């Protein structure tokens, strides 16, 4: 089976003076894949992710995101990806509907599409009764689920999730992953970071970064075999405890 490669990098590197934040990163991620991007604090995940989102110019190496060049076509990259993190999600003092309209507009969607799709999305989430409430008044779990839905509202080919479930209750955390699976089934590529090792198990494949370098990349099952351990927690521990650069 050949599937489209939507994230392709070759020797991607970012230097700050003598410090190599991200060193020679080569990965391929396929359409509809859930790819976990793990690493210790300070390993270079954020730097790598910012390059992949077209927000930071690499020092060297090649990469294409959704078919667009990471040096020359960053604006096109931004239109074809979605992003959410625990920290930045939605505007608290806009209503649910206003947030959707705002982000839909930012991504160049027309009013008609925004209207049709937002009703469908709110219905799916069971949020129609709250559609005209300020986002700030929603429980945190709902905010995170809404933030994810808004991040994929413009039907991006890839969505980048930076610790999307931090601090979320255990039931909502699982509902959040249901949304991730549903999006992946529709063909959206999921690129996700997390500190929850049980969530690492939910990824099709994952990479582990240590001191700027991708030290391992495979399915959870293969990684556990490779390290001869029973859990992803142990794989992470085996790899990350050798880190020199700890945050």
């Amino acid at each position, binding site marked *: 089976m050949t599937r489209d490669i939507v994230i392709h990098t070759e020797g991607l590197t970012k230097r700050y003076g003598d410090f190599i934040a991200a060193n020679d990163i080569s990965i391929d991620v396929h359409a509809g894949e859930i790819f976990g991007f793990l*690493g*210790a*604090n*300070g390993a270079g995940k954020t730097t790598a992710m910012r390059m992949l989102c077209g927000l930071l110019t690499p020092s060297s190496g090649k990469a294409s995101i959704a078919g667009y060049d990471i040096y020359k076509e960053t604006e096109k990259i931004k239109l074809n990806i979605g992003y959410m993190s*625990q920290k930045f999600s939605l505007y608290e003092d806009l209503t649910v509907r206003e947030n959707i309209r705002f982000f839909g507009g930012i991504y160049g969607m027309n009013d008609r599409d925004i209207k049709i799709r937002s009703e469908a999305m709110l219905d799916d989430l069971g949020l129609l009764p709250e559609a005209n409430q300020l986002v700030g008044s929603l*429980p*945190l*779990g709902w905010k995170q689920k809404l933030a994810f839905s808004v991040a994929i509202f413009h039907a991006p080919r890839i969505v980048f999730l930076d*610790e999307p479930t*931090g*601090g*979320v*209750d*255990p*039931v*909502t955390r*699982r509902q959040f*992953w249901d949304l991730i*699976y549903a999006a992946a089934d529709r063909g959206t590529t999921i690129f996700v970071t997390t*500190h*929850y*090792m*049980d969530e*690492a*198990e*939910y990824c099709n494949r994952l990479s582990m970064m240590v001191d700027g370098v991708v030290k391992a990349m495979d399915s*959870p*099952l293969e990684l556990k075999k490779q390290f001869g351990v029973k*859990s*992803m*927690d142990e794989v*992470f*521990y085996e790899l*990350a*405890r050798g*880190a020199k650069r*700890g*945050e």
Partner: protein
Amino acid sequence: MKDVVLENIVKTYNKGAVKAVKGVSFEVEEGELFGLIGPDGAGKTSLFRILTTLLLADLGRASVAGNDVVKDFRKIRNIVGYMPGKFSLYPDLTVEENLRFFATVFNTTIEENYDLVKDIYSQIEPFKDRRAGKLSGGMKQKLALSCALIHRPKVLFLDEPTTGVDAVSRKEFWEMLKRLKAQGITILVSTPYMDEATLCERIALIQEGEILSIDTPAAIRDSFGEPLYAVKSGTMSALLADLRGSDLVLSSNSFGEYHHITFKNPGSTTVEGLRQQLISRHPDLKIESVHPTVEDCFIKLMGA
């Protein structure tokens, strides 16, 4: 002696519109390592701020080391260490200046209590001339803990010290806490990570301002009260949908590489019945009995 006592604490915000803490009571023994386990918005930070005399409760009574949080707030401020969830040191002072500042405020010196912080502070000492605002997250965390400890507090309050911290650093942080406990310091620590619950002597599970359960981690796990099974196949997302569709299954939740399930009528015939229902779609199906984790208990209590 009880070092922390909370009796029916209520805290609301926005003129009562937001009920952050809805009548919380618990006690922490002298020298105990006590965990407050719950997600964001559970009311953990409000409780910390009430206990450290930075916030007044609407109702209820609280004391720290026998001192009332309202009447004896000055005494409390002298004997507690507090590490807030948000980094609150002076970003324009260097590492060493911050530590010296906190020592001086509490009428002591770094030298006097160096043995207590040495374990932690020595890891950031190579950067003692760097401004605190320029430190990485992990180093900020170590400096904040050093500053909270430098006056040798009787009770240490740590509000989500491991949030956003990777699994290896989290493990190291908990080892540090164990060593502090061994020095006789009472520790109240909060975390949203359920797997850290087992590292505490006793825990309170908290959700939306209410305590769900208080006990030792082992007793909480034992109180799950029904057989729990771990189920696995090659197609986990299809398996979860099938489990949710089964008339035999009461609850099903993803837990890493397994789904954890309970049955409406548990027993060996039910396990066999489920196997028969699923085996054609999941030929590599595995069902095994497992012990509940604290997270299993939390999920069950949330639904109760």
